[in-house]
């Protein structure tokens, strides 16, 4: 109905009323599984309309952090805020502004694309008519309109990821988390997804936290958070992080930052 409006609004809002409030703020968060410490005093923030890459090897603590932000795990210490709403104290208000694409696939394979989207909309309390309109619009945007009635099982890996991103946007969140969304995809599908998400940042002003271990997904203007063995080793615009590490590129910078610590263990 008012499909063009939200885009315009979303562009304005971060610059006006809420400019000071970060889309996501992580404040001194620690987490352990029994004796194993997965996160140690992690702090960083994601600004609205920015692309923040969370760079870390497998086992760095990225998925744990995602589980804490999405309230799947209780927060043991520290604070997570989404546009100022504390995830532990007012999870409803916080989660309403959040869209997530988890690393494992979380679609119902036996249901159709539309059914998956409508289910998600219902979970956010969006009525059927509005949900149908938004589903059609989003399916069109990801180029899967003609597959609306197919079963998700019949989609390719890249198409499923695009559908998951569309689903995460259905309730019009202003912060989008993606946990290694390009894992297992071919080069073309990867490029499609990256450019789609970057478009969301520039056109709709969504704050994006993109967890990855692939250096080539990060651009010079992006904000970068380097997470290693549960600790934040560096953060800031990528160019600055590289300069501070005295390196030429992000690959070398990452190796310098983490190298000494990874050597003895032979990787995470």
């Amino acid at each position, binding site marked *: 109905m008012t499909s063009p*409006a*939200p885009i315009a*609004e*979303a562009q304005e*809002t971060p610059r006006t*009323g*809420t400019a000071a409030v970060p889309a996501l703020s992580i404040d001194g968060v620690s987490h352990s*599984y029994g004796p194993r410490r*997965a996160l140690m005093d992690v702090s960083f923030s994601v600004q609205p309309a920015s692309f923040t890459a969370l760079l870390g090897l*497998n*086992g*760095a*603590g*990225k*998925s*744990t952090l995602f*589980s804490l932000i*999405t*309230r*799947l*795990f*209780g927060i043991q210490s520290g604070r997570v805020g989404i*546009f100022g*709403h504390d995830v532990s104290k*007012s*999870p*409803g*208000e*916080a*989660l*309403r*502004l*959040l869209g*997530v694409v*988890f*690393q*494992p*696939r*979380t*679609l*119902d394979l*036996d*249901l159709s694309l539309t*059914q998956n989207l*409508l*289910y*998600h*909309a*219902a*979970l*956010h*309390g*969006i*009525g*059927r008519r509005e949900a149908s309109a938004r589903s059609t619009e989003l399916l069109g945007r990801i180029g899967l309109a003609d597959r609306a009635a197919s079963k998700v099982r019949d989609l390719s890996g890249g198409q499923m990821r695009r559908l998951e991103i569309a689903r995460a946007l259905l309730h*019009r969140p*202003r912060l989008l988390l993606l946990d290694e969304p390009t894992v297992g995809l071919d080069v073309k599908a990867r490029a499609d997804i990256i450019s789609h998400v970057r478009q969301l940042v520039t056109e709709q002003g969504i704050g994006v936290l993109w967890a990855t271990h692939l250096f080539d997904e990060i651009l010079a203007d992006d904000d970068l958070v380097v997470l290693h063995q549960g600790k934040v080793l560096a953060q800031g615009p990528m160019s600055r992080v590289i300069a501070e590490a005295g390196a030429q590129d992000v690959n070398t910078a990452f190796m310098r930052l983490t190298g000494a610590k990874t050597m003895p263990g032979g990787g*995470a």
Partner: protein
Amino acid sequence: MSSIATREAPRGFSFAEYMTCLGGIVWREGLRFLHQRERFVSALVRPLVWLFIFAAGFRQVLGISIIPPYETYILYEVYIAPGLMAMIQLFNGMQSSLSMVYDREMGNMRTLLVSPLPRGFLLFCKLLAGTAVSLLQVYAFLLIAWLWDITPPPQGYLTVLPALILSGLMLGSLGMLISSGIKQLENFAGVMNFVIFPMFFASSALYPLWRVQEGSPYLYYLCEANPFTHAVELIRFALYGQVNWISLAVVATCTIVFMIGAILAYDPSRGLARRGPAGGEA
């Protein structure tokens, strides 16, 4: 314009949003059930085997005297029908919780749990959805049973509905409570053996309790203490337009206790904590 602006301040959730969410969860559970034809067939075959084979064989062995709510002598098939209805719900409750363990391992559960609505409400919706599915199964069974000459009074089909909803919720939340204690899918076979079979056999589903008492007083007390017995009796009386108040009280209390327990015990990090970050990332 207003949608973004009002999001800044906490606004809670409206009744309509809660109902949309409930409707969506029930709808999805129904769709999934319809897609799993085998599940529907096996849910029906199981009680029918009992009805057509077991009951026919035992008809001559077990004489049933006139006990409430029955007003005449009845065939053994008629006696065990309510027990089989409860059995359908017992299996369905356990199966729903099995699918929750599966969902949790596969990641589908995350879709549900990142909904902004309160988690307790989401789990309650899940229970209601499971109960709705069990109602489909029970009424399909009643239809076949009717063809088999098990003909409760017509209004019984309506009066049994609230009883079925309550017993379905009780058995569903019991399943959820158990599933929250299960770390992995593989452990579920044990639940079948240690929960479903004892609950079913140590109850009034297959034989009236006065018969049990003649054989073994201890077993009788065990049956009386078994919530499943009361689910069966609640359904049995309701099917004949009557209320068994004791059973109603027991089933209602157990439903509340199991449900609160299940919601409190439901910890999504279980399974994820051990398998996710360890198995998923590494």
